[in-house]
């Protein structure tokens, strides 16, 4: 195995990332630049940046491997990750931008006027962020191990280090350019190789991926889009749908991007472009899975399907061209780790900077930018240490659970907060606790044990289908029981969230 092209690819992505980050630094001057790029990012650039940030290792590497092993049922992941943006678009995109807040914690405080809700939201944002960062860092370790032969810890330290340098030096303004660049890099890194591979496949007579003899599942099970095809499979499929459709709006790194839009209308248009970009990207990974069924049976037999995207070009095209294509997909995978981790570092660091590192200690407090930098360091170092200490948790599984927690906590808070005046701080806290505890218990149980055959195990494996309704009902019922706690300025808040900016209206105190 020749490692030179992979090393060159990783080095080039690193240099390009740092160079674009430094170039963007020239524009970053104020705290507002660091946190939200001063709200001046147009829909197309912003949509590319959202796409770049959102397409993590789970999308770039995970899906192809899962499709190879388990077939069409795994395509619900990319479908759900895209449909989540449609739900976000129709329920929260414009109001979220118009709320005029930096983070989810800001939104909660502005809407409900309660410090306690704010603190609870901050805790949940940080926990979701860490749950999402942990598998990214571990995945980076595995990728560098399989492509470069580097030790496992190298990738898990290198990625956080580059992210930290970039984020701390340039903040949101420069990261926007980096993320936009990385979307197009990831798309190219999957598109060019798959064109070559499809030509090779047609040249081989185009053996049908379903009918080919495989050491994996039977052709029928591979084509059926339900896990196992029984009632448990039906439950798992629908629960995954609930988690991905509703969880996207509650992910910290997705939400923070909305504050960089100039206004509510732009926020909607940005989301529409994101739908196009994600749809374009997600056409590709399943094709790798299908070709893998024809050409990469050795990976199924040895259980190394996570590296399918990295190995397939070498398996199908021997010689220098295969090495070149391998270098390209390695570059894309590395970009995937970097961009998602950067987005999460900014989001979690922003929240920590406001609520933890920005607080006065013995009468002294850090300035806005210094607090943001300290917050980012904290946001990255903790999951980096966890990645080194904990055994491998699996990218797709951990990311799926992060979606379930986000759907069970922030989705009810955002949807009810935006569309229902009756929400009270007490109701919000009750709902967040019920949804967070339910899905959180499922996370701990799932990461600690292996999935079993019983219904109890199935319900805990994919908690969203019961934890999301429970959170919604609790929030609604407790709010109804405490009508005296409805914030007094709810009218102003509703005006701010829903009326177009060009109409001059009293929108209450703006938080900028």
């Amino acid at each position, binding site marked *: 195995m020749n490692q030179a092209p992979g090393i060159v690819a990783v080095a080039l992505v690193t240099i390009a990332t740092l160079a674009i980050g430094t170039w963007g630094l020239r524009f970053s001057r104020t705290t507002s630049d660091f946190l939200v790029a001063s709200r001046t990012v147009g829909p197309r650039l912003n949509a590319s940046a959202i796409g770049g940030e959102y397409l993590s290792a789970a999308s770039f590497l995970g899906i192809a491997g899962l499709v190879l092993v388990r077939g069409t049922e795994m395509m619900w992941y990319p479908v759900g990750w*895209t449909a989540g943006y449609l739900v976000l678009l*129709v329920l929260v995109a414009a109001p979220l931008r118009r709320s005029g807040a930096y983070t989810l914690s800001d939104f909660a405080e502005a809407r409900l006027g309660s410090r306690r809700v704010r603190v609870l939201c901050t805790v949940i944002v940080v926990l979701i962020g860490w749950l999402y960062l942990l598998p990214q860092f571990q995945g980076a370790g595995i990728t560098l191990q399989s492509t470069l032969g580097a030790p496992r810890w190298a990738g898990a330290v290198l990625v956080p280090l580059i992210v930290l340098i970039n984020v701390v030096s340039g903040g949101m303004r420069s990261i926007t350019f980096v993320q936009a660049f990385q979307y197009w890099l990831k798309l190219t890194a999957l598109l060019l190789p798959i064109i070559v591979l499809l030509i090779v496949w047609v040249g081989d007579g185009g053996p049908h991926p379903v009918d080919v003899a495989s050491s994996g599942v039977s052709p029928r099970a591979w084509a059926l889009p339900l896990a196992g095809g029984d009632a448990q499979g039906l439950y798992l499929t629908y629960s995954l749908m609930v988690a991905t459709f509703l969880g996207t709006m509650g992910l910290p790194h997705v939400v923070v991007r909305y504050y960089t839009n100039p206004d509510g209308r732009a926020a909607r248009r940005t989301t529409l472009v994101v739908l196009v970009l994600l749809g374009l990207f997600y056409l590709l990974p399943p094709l790798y899975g299908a070709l893998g069924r024809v050409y990469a049976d050795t990976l199924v037999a040895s259980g190394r399907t996570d590296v399918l995207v990295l190995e397939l070009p070498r398996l199908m095209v021997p010689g220098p061209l295969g090495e070149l294509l391998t270098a390209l997909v390695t570059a894309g995978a590395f970009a995937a780790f970097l961009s998602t981790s950067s987005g999460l570092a900014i989001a979690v660091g922003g929240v920590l900077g406001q609520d933890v590192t920005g607080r006065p200690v013995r009468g002294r407090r850090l300035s806005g930018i210094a607090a943001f930098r300290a917050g980012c360091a904290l946001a990255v170092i903790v999951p980096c240490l966890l990645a080194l200490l904990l055994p491998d948790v699996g990218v797709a599984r951990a990311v799926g659970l992060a979606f379930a927690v986000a759907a069970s906590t922030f989705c009810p808070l955002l949807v009810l907060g935006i569309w229902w005046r009756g929400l009270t701080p007490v109701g919000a806290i009750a709902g967040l606790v019920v949804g967070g505890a339910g899905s959180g218990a499922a996370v701990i149980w799932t990461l600690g044990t292996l999935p079993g055959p019983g219904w109890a195990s199935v319900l805990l494996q994919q908690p969203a289908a019961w934890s999301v309704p429970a959170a919604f009902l609790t929030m609604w019922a407790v709010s109804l029981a405490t009508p005296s706690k409805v914030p007094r300025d709810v*009218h102003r808040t509703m005006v701010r969230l829903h009326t177009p900016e060009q*109409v001059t209206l009293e929108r209450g105190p703006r938080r900028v």
Partner: protein
Amino acid sequence: MSERTPPRVRVSGPSRRPTLRPARPRRRQIDDETRLGELYLRSLLREQLRHSALSLLALLLGIGSLPIVFYLAPGLSDVRLLGMPLPWLLLGFAVYPFLVVVGWRYVRSAERTEADFADLVETVDRP
């Protein structure tokens, strides 16, 4: 001596009654939280929520129905169109344009509602 009689012109003096309300745009009703202003805001919210609900319904019927359909009729996964299994064609390709179309229609109607709202509340009511 003129052949034509000039058309009759009605001459009236300025109204002596004081104007009841000063001229002001309707949006002030929203700032003052009057019942009329409340009505404007509620109708905006209801209209926007209706667009959202319709889009979510399209999502539910178009994509949310697929698992139950394949659960009830697993034979459908053996159907091939253009050489590809039907589930693959649906989940791998067809869903993405569908999502974009639903999103595009939503953005159009939401923007139209906002433009109508702006027209409505910027109207200046003269007594």
